[in-house]
């Protein structure tokens, strides 16, 4: 109907389909406070966008999705900038490594496979964890008992060298931990087009022991800058960032997120979280099916030296 040509993906797509996808994923991210990159990239692959372009464009969209949240937390002084910069140093290295790996796998003809398998593993584990967590919470609530919260414990991580003091987080820990964590999230951003909040937030709380009050703001700081770096590196090296695609998704997502936030404030969490877990597992199963189902044609062509 209203087809729009995506110049980097080199395909025409219905403009309302893209706005709608942006809106739905934006709604979900507003509802649950998640980034949404991990849902959007597979959806783009399902509608026929080449997986590399889905990743490159989505990483660009995550910049738009996370920057306003980062600014809001900054205004409330809920960002540990020192921790953020240390995370970001690892994140920049990780994202550079991820873009290099991306190009290497593409030359091998295996990038689509690696993107799909990464998503199957990631969505499968997130979906299962979320499902277990929400079922457990629902059961607990019905029984009327509350979970005991474990206090911050000392673990192996505190024996590592290169200790640094983080005043805002009231921590004195080895810099290796945040640098390493940033690196892993940076690789995920470049390779999968996700912000990585689903990994970053729990790791900052349980592994680094950061106070919950600064975790979200600091993770948004890291996500905004790492996805910005990944966008520039992908543009320079793999030419997979489609700004028309990213722009339309952002437009839909900004509107959807507003409604999501409002609805989320009025509804109870556990059932909804269980529902999101189902969506995540469904997307995971679809991706897995595409990997194991025999393709209609076994052969594919690619032009050497032309990406």
């Amino acid at each position: 109907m209203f087809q729009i040509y995506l110049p980097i993906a080199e395909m025409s797509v219905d403009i309302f389909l893209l706005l709608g996808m942006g809106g739905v994923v934006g709604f979900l991210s507003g509802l649950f406070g998640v980034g949404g990159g991990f849902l959007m990239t597979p959806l783009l692959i399902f509608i026929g966008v080449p997986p590399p372009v889905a990743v490159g464009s989505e990483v660009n969209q995550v910049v738009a999705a996370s920057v306003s949240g980062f600014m809001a937390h900054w205004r409330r002084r809920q960002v540990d900038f020192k921790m953020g910069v240390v995370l970001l140093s690892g994140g920049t290295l990780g994202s550079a490594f991820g873009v290099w790996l991306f190009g290497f796998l593409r030359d091998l003809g295996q990038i689509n496979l690696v993107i799909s398998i990464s998503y199957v593993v990631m969505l499968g584990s997130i979906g299962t964890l979320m499902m277990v967590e929400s079922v457990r919470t629902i059961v607990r609530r019905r029984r009327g008992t509350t979970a005991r919260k474990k206090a911050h414990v000392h673990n192996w991580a505190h024996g590592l060298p290169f200790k640094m003091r983080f005043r805002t987080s009231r921590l004195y820990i080895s810099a290796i931990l945040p640098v390493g964590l940033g690196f892993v999230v940076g690789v995920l951003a470049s390779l999968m087009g996700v912000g990585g909040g689903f990994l970053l937030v729990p790791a900052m709380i349980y592994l680094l022991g950061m106070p919950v009050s600064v975790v979200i703001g600091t993770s948004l700081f890291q996500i905004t800058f790492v996805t910005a770096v990944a966008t520039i590196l992908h543009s320079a090296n793999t030419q997979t960032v489609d700004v028309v695609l990213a722009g339309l998704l952002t437009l839909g997502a900004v509107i959807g997120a507003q409604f999501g936030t409002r609805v989320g404030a009025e509804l109870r969490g556990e059932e909804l979280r269980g529902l999101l877990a189902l969506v995540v597992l469904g997307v995971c199963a679809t991706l897995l099916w595409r990997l194991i189902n025999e393709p209609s044609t076994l052969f594919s062509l690619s032009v050497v030296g032309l990406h």
Partner: protein
Amino acid sequence: MTRALHTFVAIVLAALSLGMRPAAAQDLIADISNHLISITSDFTGTELLVFGAIEGGGDVVVVVSGPRDSVIVRKKDRVFGIWINAESAEFDNVPAFYAVAATNPLEELAAPEQLRLYEIGLAGLRLEAEPDVDEAQEVEFLDALIQLKQENELYPTAPQHIDVVGGRLFRVKIPFPADVPVGSYLVQSFLIRDGLVASAQTSPLVVNKGGFGADLYEFAHAEGELYGILAVLGAVMAGLLGNLLFRRS
């Protein structure tokens, strides 16, 4: 670069082959309706008119071939239950587009060697695999390459038929699909007599993308870093603007 070189070499060769047969050259005159096909966002395919005149009888063959590149053909195989790209074979000088039109079936016009010499018809195309590809694999992968190209309408299966009016004038329309590859094309017209190419003429054709999308594509590939920085700035502005618009309500 290589594309431009191929085009140049082909034009020079064509010019030389004409120069060597000055008498026969006048027996064939051909031209095309359009030397530039511009693909804009509403492009749904087009037709190219090839027309001309022959003198003294004979058969006419028109070959339209697109820019030539090295192409990797990959075959999926099942590994641990998952279909992954396993074997591959690389072919050189593969035209991105290849269409043929003729007054009679090609095999009736000339011997395979002659067709192969001038790369007339799919059977005459000299598509050779890299040396590391063994023969059985080469046959299988070459078939797959041609089949995929045919499915995408880039190697049209049925050759267009050329009518010759009054034994002198000929014209034929060559269809181009919506996703025709960009680059430098060659339109070659051959006059065939007694199983031999008696005369040939080559016209260059350029297919390019036009409009906003093409400019953006060009920019993204030529100035990647700048494109990336602008993409980030755009995303930051969009994020902040969205926040600003909705915060008040």
